[in-house]
């Protein structure tokens, strides 16, 4: 048990180290001028004073360890830097976008997990049957269509061609709607991005659960349950699926990281004002501090989810952490 905890802690520390390396050290290790590298593309706009101020702002005139100390202090205070392009604090920009991404990613995770589990369980239970074969083929094909493609297609068809759904934003601007109307409006804008993201995640969850179930179904305890005359549905879910979701649970962290990647494209396509769209803008404008901030936040997000999953895993699988 202690060994496991220690492994986790070491991995978390390494994650943070990689993050610091990417955000702090790499730009400073770059050959040539760090400022010019970080703000490349905007050199023409840069005046002497701006350059000097940037050097001072970033503390680049200080020794490396002092720079690092300042960086850490700022980070601890939730200061993720300042975006000169947007003229706003990076943290504020991110906090404005984060709720939308959380709404999109969270809902999508739950929906795709439920759909993936139910479909995977039912499909494996009928292995080789028509339902299984059809669903498997469909999922294998759907799995091949990248979220990018699904997004573009549904945008074209449902927003532009039929005009059923709004093509941009997370709510109607200046509508002043409140209460139920507001929620309806938000959901209305959420439908397509959510459907696209969920659709792109379901095949992965489905295939994972199906494979895991195929192995679980052969376990002796399933036979035991059958012998006990337990109802089919109870065997399927309480005995087999209960064990089959264990590999899925260990991969929640990875799935979330996938989802964030997917959200990046989906938000860009549907101009949904989450972290993804913010990233897209940062890329277009070469807004480096903003990119760093987004990376920091998304890594911390995934890390937190991983910690929660790790802590909860013991509850799901009683064998973990038991010394034989």
């Amino acid at each position, binding site marked *: 048990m202690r060994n496991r905890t220690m492994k986790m802690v070491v991995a978390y520390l390494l994650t943070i180290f990689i993050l610091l390396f990417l955000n702090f050290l790499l730009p400073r290790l770059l050959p040539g001028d760090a400022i010019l590298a970080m703000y490349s593309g905007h050199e023409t706009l840069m005046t002497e004073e701006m350059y000097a101020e940037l050097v001072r702002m970033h503390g680049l005139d200080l020794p490396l360890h002092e720079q690092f100390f300042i960086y850490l202090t700022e980070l601890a205070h939730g200061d993720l830097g300042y975006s000169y392009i947007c003229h706003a604090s990076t943290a504020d920009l991110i906090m404005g976008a984060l709720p939308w991404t959380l709404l999109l990613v969270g809902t999508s995770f739950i929906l795709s997990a439920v759909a993936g589990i139910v479909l995977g369980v039912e499909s494996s239970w009928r292995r080789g049957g028509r339902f299984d074969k059809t669903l498997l083929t469909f999922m294998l094909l759907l799995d091949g269509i990248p979220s990018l493609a699904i997004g573009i297609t549904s945008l074209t068809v449902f927003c532009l061609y039929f005009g059923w759904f709004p093509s941009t934003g997370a709510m109607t601007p200046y509508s002043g709607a409140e209460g139920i109307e507001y929620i309806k409006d938000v959901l209305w804008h959420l439908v397509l991005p959510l459907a696209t993201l969920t659709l792109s995640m379901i095949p992965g969850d489905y295939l994972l659960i199906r494979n895991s179930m195929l192995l679980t179904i052969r376990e*002796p305890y399933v036979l*035991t*349950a059958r012998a006990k005359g337990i109802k089919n549905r*109870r065997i399927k879910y309480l*005995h087999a699926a209960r064990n089959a979701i264990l590999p899925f649970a260990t991969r929640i962290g990875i799935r979330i990281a996938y989802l964030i990647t997917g959200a990046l494209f989906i938000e860009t396509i549907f101009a949904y004002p989450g972290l993804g769209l913010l990233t897209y803008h940062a890329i277009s404008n070469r807004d480096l501090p903003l990119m760093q901030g987004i990376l920091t936040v998304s890594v911390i997000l995934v890390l937190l989810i991983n910690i929660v999953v790790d802590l909860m895993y013991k509850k799901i*699988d*009683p064998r973990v952490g038991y010394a034989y």
Partner: protein
Amino acid sequence: MSLQFKNLNVRYGVSGSPDDHITALDNISIKINEGECVSVVGESGSGKSTLALASMKLLAPNAVMTGQVLVGGTDVSGLSDSEMETIRWNEIAIVFQNYGDVLNPVHRIIDQVAEPLIKNGESRSIARERSERMLDYLKIKAGRDILYPHQISAGERQRVLMAMALITDPGILVLDEPVASVDAITKSYLAEVINEQVDAGKAVLLITHDLSFVPICSDRCEVLYFGSILESLPSHELLDAPRHPYTRALVRSFPMMERAKDLAGVRGVPPSMFSRSSERSCCIFQPRCTQSIGVCSQKEPQAVPRGDSSVKEDYGYVVCHRGGIATMVSVKDVSKSYKDLRVLSDISLTLDEGEILALVGETGSGKTTLAYLIAGTIKPDSGEILFRGRGVSDIDRKEFAKTVGIVYQSPRDSISHRFTVSEAIAEPLHIHGEFDDESGDRIESALREVQLPVDEYFLQKYPHELSGGELQRVAIARALIMKPHLLIADESTSFLDSSVQAKVLRLLLDLQNERGISMLFVTHDIGVARKVSDRIAVLHGGKIVENAPAHRVIANPEHPYTKQLIGVAKGGG
């Protein structure tokens, strides 16, 4: 409630095998009444577990089942899964082999025990309370019932499985290797529980490879080989009086506390699942059998009743063309005198096919005389000796000599000092006019069988150049070169020092087991007899005073003389 299998066949569809299926059970009929326990024994792959699964209709999807499985009179073979749900565990419950995750690793054991009750509509609290009591009955300590399966010991898991099966008080209990993974203490406790359940009126199907467990718990025993029942016998006869060569071979393979004879194993290898076609035209055990005759490879055998037909009691049946283990030699009321000295008086004795019989007695007890009477070299004064049903005196001497190989007491005397090794072994071939171009190979293979070198140098050695042990091996090779059916070893090892004796004994036993021949082992040493024989006959003063399975003779000698022999052998007085 009774459990009955009627002409049950199970085949598994397996691609790649001939006919794309393999037969797991072939025409099985077993009836288990209320308050009766029937055990099923057999090697792995014999279809024991398939039988257990078939009883609850739990076979894998690729299995095809025909015939009937009657659970309390209802034929379940045609029922659907949902119809089975009400029968399973309420009328028939199973204790699976405690192997791998037979209990669900993510649920507490008490919940798994209580699950069938809750399914039956019992309230959660009552189900829990009853489960607690049941676990308590099986001596799972209080407080341990809320643990998970991986947190308890293998012995406890087995008891949890038993508790789970008993919780709904089903009329039929199927036990699949219930004691395979438990310690001796738990085993005896489980035997107690099983017997209590049988006494309470349950029908119990006990599947086990633990032969010593069979007589403790069950009334009847079915011997399953490769999907067929070869013998059905009262459990108390399993260890002492098996009637089928396969049953005997199984018993010989099983380590028992009382028995000293080395374990032998069933000769040959079990047939491959894939080798068997659905059409059977021979006895399936024939390739491994010690007594197969022509008809065995031509026709499928039928069941014949075991034991005396005069006895009314049902002693089961045996599926064998020869009616079970056949008698090879039967000696009836034989007497023999040398002049005035009466050496043997009214001796009756039998020697079965594939059996090792030790004739034990002191010098002058008549044991050697009896051996040569059986070999046909001397004639009895009165009485008769039958070899495979024919009078020994009626059989052509020379023909009979081929059937019986003899290894004598002193190899130095029994092999001419003028013969080389090669010539000595070839002698019977010359004698029977069978010496030809292939004899060289026969001699070499005989030498290999007795673990002697086969190079030209060794073949040309003379007896005086060989050690006693080597020479006795040459004698054995000579005795076996005609492929006899009966080997008589007349004090064959008594001249050898114990280290060499051990090796020669080992060799004789291996040869006997692999060739499946019968052996008459004549010795004055009851210690040696107990190590090598299935049965011991003790000769004293020209009479047989003891004749029983070896382990019985050693454990419970009846005659004072036998007791004395054993006492002396043990170093007492």
